[in-house]
């Protein structure tokens, strides 16, 4: 029954994802992609549970390695997305920021 419930969650969030993303303008495709990429680092939650759990030594190591990789994904992804987005400016917002 648990599996069925999770499958329901999966189905709904896929539809929601399609609805949310399909309206994004082409200008924002790259930040959208790297922002979504950062969200896929959510796997860090699973990594934390494995690394901190009372399982065997091997599962702790696997978890710790997963934490490191997922953290690269999360921190790097959000920072790079923020860096890109802060460069997008409208015409009247002045020409400050960025490199010349």
């Amino acid at each position, binding site marked *: 029954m648990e599996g069925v419930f999770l499958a329901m969650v*999966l189905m709904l969030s896929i539809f929601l994802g399609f609805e949310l993303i399909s309206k994004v303008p*082409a200008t924002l495709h*790259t*930040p959208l*992609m790297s922002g979504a990429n950062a969200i896929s680092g959510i796997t860090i939650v699973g*990594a934390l*549970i494995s690394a901190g759990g009372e399982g065997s030594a091997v599962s702790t190591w696997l978890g710790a390695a997963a934490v490191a990789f*997922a953290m690269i994904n999360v921190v790097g992804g959000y920072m790079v997305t923020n860096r890109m987005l802060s460069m997008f400016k409208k015409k009247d917002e002045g020409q400050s*920021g960025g490199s010349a």
Partner: protein
Amino acid sequence: MSPVVINLWYVGAAALFIFGLKQLGSPATAVRGNLLSSIAMLIAIVVTLLNREILNFQWIAGAAVIGAIVGAITAQRVAMTSMPEMVALFNGSGGIASLLVGWAALYNAGNTTFTDITILLSIIIGGMTFSGSILAWGKLSEVMNSAAVVFGAQRFVNGAIVIALIACAVLFCMEPSVDSPYLYAILGLALLIGVMAVLPIGGADMPVVISLLNSYSGLAACAAGFAINNNILIVAGSMVGAAGIILTNIMCRAMNRSLANVLFSGFGAAKQATKVEGEVKPINTEDAYLILEAAQSVSFVPGYGMAVAQAQHVVRELGELLEKNGAEVTYAIHPVAGRMPGHMNVLLAEANVPYDQLIEMEDINPRMDMVDVAVVIGANDVVNPAARNDENSPIYGMPIINVDHARTVFVLKRSMASGFSGVDNPLFFGENTRMLFGDAKQSIAAVVAEFKG
């Protein structure tokens, strides 16, 4: 915290992810959207750490600090032109994290067969995301040859790998154990299939691969969510999966090819396009300046060549001079220009071009007849009129930016070599086309100097 409270926090985090993604949909709110989504991530992480199941913090702290430092430094340092390979690497690290989470979940007691299957899925999808992303990184950063590698028995080999993968998975599920030899076989095959999937894709098809790998990294997290029975992984992972699929679809449509065609066929050079005969008309920067100086409306059409030449800043400079001179300046962006979705937009934004001057293909084409000068910078296939007129052309049917409808077309190009697809471009021989040979950055800088001088 009790599991119920933890899960309630996860619900809150999921809501923030959804809001964040929604706000990413408009340039005005996108920065806030990204911030909301990062807060959601922070909540998910902190709540998980407060979970009673977590006893041992040294490993976590060490690993998290290392990961955060590596991520932060690369995110700060990377040049905007190298963004495609950066995204590929981040995708890869997300993929291997999901693989490791799945693998570690095998050590949990009392896994059902359903759980075992989802564990294998997270290992397989995570593994192929990882190896595929590393290969994509290699191709994009030109550490290795970026062309498509196609060999005769490819489909046969891929089919064999998939069958072997399924067989190993079935055998593993019949007798699951952490040191089952089938587990190692599955790990190896998953990495192999990722390599095989990216190998036949190259050059201008890379935007499709990047979007697809992005989707896989989400699906891997989603499978890991099933493996450890965690809602937030499923919600966040599947939204990323959906986002990647949508981008993949947009990229395929912009090339008028099916996903299967992009994934399996390399580039179909089977057809021989009608040979183009004619004479190209070269122009020097002085004459280019005189024409631009008289123009009322100028549209820049950038392609991957602009990224290679790092010409975005000097293009913006020329754009500003033209505006001061009274011309209307636009930038026409083809959806697959560059090596990832939206590549040109990011480069031009970096050079301080306001985003309201970036015009999408469907919006610029109807106005093209009114454009005095279209300046093509390092783009080729996306402005090739053969896609419209020549049924024999391999790119026939691909939507293009109709620069040939502009009154004058400048094409900035190193030499007469054809584009990635190796297709001749009749645009170069057009009546109203002038070729400005040389490095794009230097050519434009020379025109800018004429303006100032």
